[in-house]
C-alpha cells in the first residue's frame, strides 16, 4: 500500500488534494483508494492533516497514516525535522518552498511561485498534487486532470490543470533539493 500524508493549514485545500489523488488513482481498473482528513472541528489557518491510501486491493485499515511513502507540505512553515519520523525508509518529503535542501529525501518546488503566476491565488494544493505526479509514476497526469474535472467546479478546471502541468515540469526539470 502507498500512503500519503498531507500537511496544510485550514483553507489551503490539503484535504481536497488528498481526495483528488484518491479519485485519480482509482480511475484505473482494480485500483482502490481511501482519502480522509484528520477529523474534528475545522479552523481556517490552523494546521491540518489529510491522508490518502492507495492499493490494488480493497483497503480495510481506516486509521491515520503513521509512516508515509510521501509526506507533502503545502506550507513550509509546518515543516520540521519531526517529519522524518513519519516517513517509511524510502519515503520522500515534497515541500512547497523557495528554499533549497541538501537532502535526497526532500523534493522542493516553488509552489507559491507557480500559484502566483497561474492561479493568481496563494493556493498550492493542486500544484503539490502535480509535484507528486512528477515523482510518483503510479498516478498519471491524465488521471489527475480527469479527477479535477469530476470533482472540482467547472470554473476551476483550466487553471488548476495548467498548474498541475507546471508543477510536474518544475519537479522533473529538477528544482529538486
Amino acid at each position, binding site marked *: 500500500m502507498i500512503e500519503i500524508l498531507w500537511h496544510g493549514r485550514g483553507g489551503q485545500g490539503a484535504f481536497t488534494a488528498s*481526495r483528488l489523488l*484518491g*479519485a485519480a488513482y*482509482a*480511475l484505473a481498473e482494480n*485500483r*482502490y*483508494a*481511501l*482519502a*480522509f*482528513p484528520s*477529523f*474534528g*472541528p475545522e479552523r481556517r489557518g490552523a494546521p491540518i492533516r489529510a491522508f490518502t491510501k492507495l492499493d490494488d486491493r*480493497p*483497503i*480495510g*485499515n*481506516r*486509521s*491515520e497514516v503513521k509512516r508515509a511513502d510521501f509526506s507533502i507540505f503545502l506550507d513550509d512553515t509546518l515543516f520540521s525535522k519531526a517529519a522524518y519520523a513519519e516517513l517509511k525508509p524510502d519515503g520522500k518529503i515534497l515541500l512547497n518552498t523557495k528554499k533549497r535542501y541538501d537532502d535526497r529525501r526532500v523534493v522542493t518546488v516553488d509552489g507559491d511561485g507557480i500559484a502566483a503566476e497561474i492561479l493568481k491565488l496563494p493556493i498550492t494544493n493542486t500544484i503539490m498534487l502535480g509535484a507528486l505526479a512528477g515523482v510518483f509514476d503510479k498516478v498519471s497526469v491524465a488521471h489527475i486532470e480527469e*479527477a479535477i474535472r*469530476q*470533482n472540482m467546479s467547472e470554473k476551476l478546471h483550466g487553471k488548476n490543470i495548467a498548474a498541475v502541468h507546471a508543477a510536474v515540469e518544475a519537479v522533473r526539470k529538477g528544482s529538486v533539493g
Partner: protein
Amino acid sequence: MAKKFLSGNEAFAEGIRLARPQVISAYPITPQTIVVERLSEMVEDGSLKAEFIHVESEHSALSCAMGASAVGARAFTATSSQGLLYMVECLVYASGGRFPIVMMNANRSTALPWNIYGDQRDSIALLDSGWIQSYAENAQEALDLALMSYYIAEHKNVSTPYMANLDGFVLTHTYEVVDVPTQEQADAFLPRFETENKLDFAHPRNLGFSAGPDHNTQFKYKEHLGLLRVREIVNEAEARFAEIFGRRYTGLTENYRTKDADFILVTLGSISGLVREVVDGLREKNIKAGLLRLRYLRPFPDEEIVRALSGAKAAAVLEKDISFGGDGTVYTNVTAALQKAGVRLPVSDYIVGLGGRNISAEEIEQIFEELKRGAVKTVFLGIGGEDA
C-alpha cells in the same frame, strides 16, 4: 453504473436519491450534516423531486417524517448522537405506529464529556426502540443499504422503521470508490411504497390510537413479529439486489474465514475491514482466525451467530459500546444467543473506540493472542478490565 469517489455520507445520499423519497425532514448535527446537505442540493437542483422540510429539532424531524409516512409518503430523516437521543420519544411512536421511515444515524459518542467522534453507544442504547438496525462497513455498502432499507422497511410483512448506522467520520467522512447505480436500475429494484396503514378518505381508519391492558400485548407481539420477519425479507431483498446490481450481500451477518476457525472476533461496522486484514495476516502464520461481522443488530442474528461460533475454541466481541455497570450490549446479546442454543465456549468482551479512540492492527492481533488462553473477561482495550 458510474464509478465515483465519495464519502460515506455522500454515498448514502446517492442511495436515498435513487430511492426517491417524497419527504425529507432533518436537523443538522455533526457528523451527519453532509448527508442532508447533499440531499437538499439535489432537491434544489431538481435531481430529486421531494419536499425538503427544515425543522427546528430532531424531535420535529422524526414527527414530520411520521406525518408524511401516515399519508403514505416515503419519508427520510437523518441524525446522530444527541440528536438521536432527543428524538427518542418519537422513535417508539414510529415503530409502534408501524411507519416504515428510513433514518440514517451517523454513529457518534454521547455526552458528557462532550465529544463529536465516533462510537456506537447512541444507536446501541436504542436497540429496544423497535427499529430495524443495520451497520455498514464501507461507503458502497452504505449506498446499497440506503436502497435496500426501503424495500425491507416497507415490505407489507414488516412495516417497521429502519435505522441505517454509519460510523461517524471513519465512514461518514472517508472518501472511497463507490459504484453509483442508474435510476433505471434503482427503479427496477425498489417498488413504489404501498400501504394500508395511512390516512385515506376513501378508506377511513384509525391511526395512532391507544390500546389498554387487554390488547396492548397483542400489538407489541405483532411489532415483535414484524421485526423477526425482517430476516426473510433481507434475504429476499439481497437476492433481488444481486440480480439487478451484481453485488451479493450475506444476510444479517457476514462470515469471513470462520468455517474452520479456532478463534473468532465478532464485530460490526467499519472496524471490520481492519479485523479482516488482521485475520489474513494470522492465517499466513497458520493461526486459524476468523471474523463474524454483524450487519444487523435488530433483528438480532442469533441463529447465524450460533452457527458461526459453535465450532470455535474461543471468541471475543469487539464493540464501541458499554452498558455501564453491565457489559457491552452486543456481548450480552451474543452470549445470550449461545446460551439459548446450549453452545458453550469462552467469550470475552472488548470495549473499544469510545469517543473515537483509534484501534490498531497490533491491538486486534493481541486480542487473538489472548483468545488462545481461553479466558473470559470484559476489557476496556488499552485501559484494563477484570476477569470474570
